[in-house]
């Protein structure tokens, strides 16, 4: 017995040594690591596509991890990616507040950190590319105002449906919306949560229509919910443009289709694919040691505009 265990042990050691040696081989090409919020959502699929295409076009190796809407996975998977040896980190964080350990780990390895949307969590990142969620909500409010002003009915009632409660950065969309719409003289009769789910958007909208049949417009924190809302309005015998004006957020493909089909009024477009490309460019600059041009130097932010997409623009976007 002792002889067999000795042979086993030495075999094990040999294997481990070989494996370790294999692993310490140097890597030639630069590698960009992208850690994404959750690939279940169209928005992040677009962002990932933009990042990947830009990285590959620039000749980098590309590696992706999916945080699967979990901050624990965010930290562990991203840190693993850093341990594997990347030259730059691009991250779209599920919970920006939990970026601390990631940024610390990256700094230790002298890897530049580029944050793609959501938020920076007050950490020491190199740059953040951010679309202004709050401004998007304001944009939606002003658009709704302009649409309703030209209408016959004088209903000043609107509703606001938020994403899931833990998505605090998406919540800013509704905060911005409600603040601005109240300034414009409207009444927010309901602020409910659709939990970012499409079927919840449907159900909650049905309830809102039940409670306030004269509601004139609804703003929803993301497009899946908005499409659900459009269906709810249609099922109540009304139209999502003429009777209850529905505005979503993200410019997902399903929303563009709904807008084009006249079932939904508008959406606020973020440009995830372009943001992805932008982050790769910024990472390249940082790796070269260049200085960056910020939109706001205080927080090292680079703003990306949000656009209002109505029926006209939806058509063009879909064709792309």
């Amino acid at each position, binding site marked *: 017995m002792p002889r067999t265990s000795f042979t086993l042990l030495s075999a094990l050691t040999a294997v*481990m040594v070989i494996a370790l040696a*294999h692993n310490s081989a140097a890597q030639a090409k630069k590698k960009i690591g992208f850690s994404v919020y959750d690939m279940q959502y169209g928005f992040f699929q677009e962002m990932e596509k933009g990042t990947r295409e830009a990285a590959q076009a620039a000749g980098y190796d590309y*590696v992706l991890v999916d945080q699967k809407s979990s*901050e624990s996975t965010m930290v562990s998977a991203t840190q*693993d990616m850093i*341990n594997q040896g990347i030259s730059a980190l691009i991250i779209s964080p599920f*919970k920006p*507040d939990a970026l*601390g*350990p990631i940024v610390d780990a990256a700094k230790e390895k002298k890897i530049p950190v580029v944050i793609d949307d959501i938020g920076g969590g007050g950490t020491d990142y190199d740059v953040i590319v951010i679309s202004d969620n709050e401004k998007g909500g304001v944009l939606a409010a002003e658009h709704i105002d302009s649409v309703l002003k030209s209408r016959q009915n004088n209903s000043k009632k609107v509703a606001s449906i938020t994403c899931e409660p833990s998505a605090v950065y998406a919540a800013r969309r509704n905060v911005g919306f409600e603040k601005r719409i109240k300034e414009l003289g409207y009444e927010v009769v309901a602020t409910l949560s659709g939990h970012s789910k499409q079927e919840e958007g449907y159900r909650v909208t049905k309830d809102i229509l039940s409670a306030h049949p004269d509601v004139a417009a609804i703003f929803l924190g993301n497009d899946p919910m908005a499409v659900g809302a459009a269906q709810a309005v249609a099922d109540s015998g009304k139209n999502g443009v003429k009777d209850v004006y529905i505005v979503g957020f993200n410019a997902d493909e399903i929303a563009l289709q709904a807008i084009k089909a006249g079932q939904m009024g508008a959406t606020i477009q973020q440009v995830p694919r372009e943001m992805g490309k932008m982050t790769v460019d910024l990472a390249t600059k940082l790796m070269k040691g260049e200085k960056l041009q910020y939109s706001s130097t205080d927080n090292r932010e680079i703003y990306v505009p949000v656009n209002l997409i109505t029926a006209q623009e939806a058509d063009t976007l879909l064709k792309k």
Partner: protein
Amino acid sequence: MSRRKPRLTTPKTQPKAQKPLSTLQTEKSEIPELSVTARIVNQLDWDLLWERFGIAVVTIVVWFIAGLATPGFANVGNFVSVLRQSAFVGVSAVGMTIAIIAGTFDLSVGATQALCAWVAVSVAKMAGVFPAFLAAVAVGGVVGLCNGSLVALVRIPAFIATLGTMFLVNGLTYIITNGQTARFSGKSFVWWGNAQIMSVPIPFIVFLSCALLGAAMLHRTEFGRFVYAIGSNREAANIAGVPVAKVAIFVFVVVGLFTGLGAMLLGARLYSAGPGLEPGFELNVIATVVLGGTRLAGGRGSMLGTVAAAILFATLANVLNLNHVDAFVQRVVVGLVLLLALSVEGVRQRLAEYWSRRTVSTRHPLGGRRSAVAAIDEFTD
């Protein structure tokens, strides 16, 4: 009344002569020759061995294969990462192991973890690490006390009681925090979630200590014996004088305490904590415990298995990421691993039945007196 002594042997039959030693060897030739290995294999209780050590062996094998097949796995930094990641589910799983051995379980650990983590981070910000630890563990204990009372005193089935507590605590956390996440990156606090001692991550050391503590509680204390008793047969334990209600409450308190500790580690790891932390955590914890060899029916379990299962899940996630497996496929793989590992006993059982051609299985697969699910509600009738 005859005075004749009763004849013990009839004269015609002679008592058998003692067989000489040499004939024992001829007797043996009637038994089929079995090699030493075969006889050892027959003697061992494979079910018990698999239950106790199965997952540990699987984990070692997986590490082996991963070290060979996956580039980037076999380095110190990666091992540290895997071990560290296993600790957050693991600490809670230690408490859950005790609960499941006792024949119950706790679905509220996820919500409790969020609350305790937030408490830990907030208190650490104001008062330092040790008060944060005390606060987190205390809050966990209080939640456990509520769970225990609901299950043992009000007699609500554990499934529903802890489901209800889960919703309650979840909502409460949102209300207390107003939906905001608390952040704190003080060095002495985050050390607990991120640092290493000689390349062994601190959370893992805490996890192992908790596992040892849990195992000690189970095997060396009266409480542990009561836990096993209640888990095997609650009524018998009750009749035998085990204070079932008190033990049950204490079990839930233990779950809460461990969850609170794990929560503090998680908050330290993430430099932050807030409501909605880790949805689905409770199912991960239960899966870890069951994967580790502790069966939901209760009465038996393996703390070593829990440790190994926690490491296995962390390893799996790590290896899948290193191999750039698509996130959607990862979900399928993790589920398959869980199912495969748990099918081993069933498959072995069926093979044994088939080979021995038994017509009536003495152990019904769905359980004896009651089903496995029913066993969970032993406290309720």
